[in-house]
């Protein structure tokens, strides 16, 4: 039988290699922008305009118009291909009347605007605060409920608590990777986190747990069947039995997501990208984090590990 579990520390190392750069990105982002991931107007409040001009223009030309309305730091970005002539501008919370005046000036100084292909969102700061608060509440409740659900599902298995904790640790790992990804994209490509991002994170939580349940379910089934075998062997056997179908199930959802990423509407691409990253990570962490964690716990290796480190320090 192929020994998958024996290489468990390699898997933890790979996870660390995924998480650490993300953490660095989040620290950098916190220093530069004040938050670990860049927040959209959904959370901070503000106004976001998408303007499609009928002719090419430059970032500076657009910025100048906004500056003339006393916006000190408008964030101007080109969207899509250059020939789309579509620009996105983020400013502080501004009422619709003023936005309309700005649009008139833009049309005046740069060129006609294609209104039918433009959009505007404004979010008051109070609403932004509320969204932030309910977002935090949603994530916490989701994690708690899902954790409780796992513990209830596995209540008849010895050490149900361990299954719950392992699944949640792996889930946190998935969220960290997704957050790190978005943080890095925020620094590199100005990606911002909106209400949909939160949706992606919560969906990843759902997927992540779902995937872990498939693997854990097999361990649950094999444990009474093979009482004589050491735990490590049972777990290894269970993984080998389900790895195939775990990959195939995730594959189908990934097909759909990749199709949306490649051909779908621009406004949900970031949302789908976060979900895809989360899903790939969740598939990895089910097999290579959650289950090995169970084994580590069973064998009491955490204590051993620290003893070994201390031993080495003492020798040095």
């Amino acid at each position, binding site marked *: 039988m192929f020994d998958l579990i024996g290489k468990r520390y390699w898997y933890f190392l790979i996870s660390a290699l995924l998480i650490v750069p993300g953490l660095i990105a989040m620290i950098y982002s916190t220093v530069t922008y004040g938050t670990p991931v860049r927040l959209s107007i*959904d959370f901070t409040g503000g106004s976001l305009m*998408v303007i499609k001009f009928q002719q090419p223009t430059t970032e500076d030309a657009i910025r100048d118009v906004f500056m003339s309305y006393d916006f000190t730091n408008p964030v101007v970005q080109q969207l899509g291909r250059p020939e789309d002539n579509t620009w996105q501008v983020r400013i502080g919370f501004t*009422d*619709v*009347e003023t936005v*309309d005046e700005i649009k008139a000036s833009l049309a005046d100084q740069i060129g006609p605007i*294609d209104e*039918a*292909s*433009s*959009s*505007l*969102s*404004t*979010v*008051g700061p*109070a*609403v932004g605060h*509320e*969204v932030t608060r*309910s977002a935090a509440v*949603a994530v916490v409740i*989701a994690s708690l*409920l*899902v954790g409780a*659900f*796992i513990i209830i*599902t596995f209540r008849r298995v010895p050490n149900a608590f361990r299954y719950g904790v392992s699944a949640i640790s792996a889930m946190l790992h998935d969220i960290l990777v997704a957050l790190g990804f978005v943080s890095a994209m925020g620094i590199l490509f100005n990606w911002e986190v909106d*209400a*949909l991002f*939160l*949706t992606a994170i*919560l*969906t990843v*939580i*759902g*997927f992540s*747990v*779902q995937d872990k*349940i*498939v693997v854990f*379910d097999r361990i649950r089934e094999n444990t009474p069947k093979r009482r004589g075998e050491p735990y490590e062997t049972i777990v290894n056997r269970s993984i080998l039995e389900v790895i*195939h*179908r775990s990959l*195939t*199930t995730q594959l*189908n*959802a990934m*097909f*759909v997501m*990749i*199709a*949306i990423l*490649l*051909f*779908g*509407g621009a*406004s*949900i691409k970031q*949302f789908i990208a976060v979900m895809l990253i989360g899903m790939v990570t969740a598939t990895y962490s089910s097999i290579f984090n959650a289950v090995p964690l169970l084994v580590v716990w069973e064998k009491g290796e955490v204590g051993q590990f620290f003893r070994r480190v201390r031993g080495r320090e003492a020798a040095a």
Partner: protein
Amino acid sequence: MRDKNLGLLIGVIILAAAAIWVDLPSNPGLHIHLGPINIDRDIRIHQGLDLQGGLQVLLEADVAEGEAVERDAMDTAKVIIGSRVDALGVTEPLVQSQGERRIIVELPGVQDPELAISTIRETGLLEFVDAGNTFLEPGTVVRTDFGGTVAPTEEVAPTSEITETTTVTPTVPASPAPSPTPERVLPTVVTGRDLNRGGLSIGRKETTGELYIAFELTSEAAPKFADFTSKNVGSYLAIALDKEIISCPVIKSAITEGKGVIEGKFTLEEARSLLVQLQYGALPIPLRVETTRTIGPTLGQDSVRKSVTAGAIGLSVVFLFMLIYYRFPGLLADLALAIYALLNFAIYKFGLPPLFNYVTLTLPGIAGFLLSTGMAVDANILIFERMKEELRAGRSLGAAIEAGFSRAWTSIRDSNISTIITCAILFYFGSTFGASMVKGFALTLIIGVSISMFTAVTITRTFVRFAFDAFGDTLRDKKWLLGV
């Protein structure tokens, strides 16, 4: 077993046929009139604002922090906004309360968002104020003794006199001397409430072509107005909307018949907007715009087109994958998946009465549907993998099929429950602040996951059993058809 299975198969076929009927693009809707039963239902796709373009506004009662907002006032405001929105001529507007102090308004396909917002939001408090001898420049913000929500006390005794028809049109003097914003409080003579709602109309002056709004006072207010105008001939009678002067005519002679016109430099749209506000009354509470989202119609249609392409490609890959990887059972799963897609779409159009009557499709909603389709085959994969395992373990084909379905069930159930939990939280989160995007995604995903438990298990099992009865011998000989 066989009879029961045949019954199920017939049931599935009827269900699929019904779904196809609902899904037909040219569906005429349900119109049944049988004695006491009267059903009239349009069956069609409801597109969200992000797909068809339009405006979403979240309004909040503009009162001091912590001050209680009367429920009645909010309800009245909602009704008035509803009437104003209807008068804008938008198809399928949505006006909903959100919490205790917010109202959300969705106007699909609105052309001029700025005007729509001002029509909805402005309190629409019209006042005729006594400006005395000072001319007030239009645009000046004034203070009046008419306090917001309190109705003016009627002091005038009802009279039944019929006045002569000397209607005098108030006019703006030729060369007014602009005066600074007066700090004094101006007395209000009559307000919008004293207007006869049916007697309002827009007219155009023949001489200048300027637009005006003709009004008629109620019979209660007319004498008061007549009394005031007869005593103040020669002074200014300012007309203010939401405490902002829109015109300031001179009273040339007594207006005894209770008829007059409001002039301002109106465009046709502005005149209509004002007319609407006057017709449906002033808001009992000032509202402020908290959030707005405007999406151009082309942008939405572009998204629809792209989503359809992406969906078609993604789903084709899933269909092909199942067919190639699982062969014959894969074909059956594809069939079940096709029924799954039909059922989903039928629910979007027809809803699940009495729970809801349709699902508004948004861009994330479409993503949720596509994703749930990709996940719907998960259950089939779990079942088929299990079947293969059982076959390899040496079980007979029939036993392997039954074991595949029964053993895989716990995994399917448990994993779907975790998705449903997160969707429920998302739906709640989306509802609290009107993030219709989040709600749309959660709703289609939750519907998809629920239906998939039925199609991927019950329907596929019916197909597999039926196929096994019909072609069992062939399948036993040609194991490659099972992908083993």
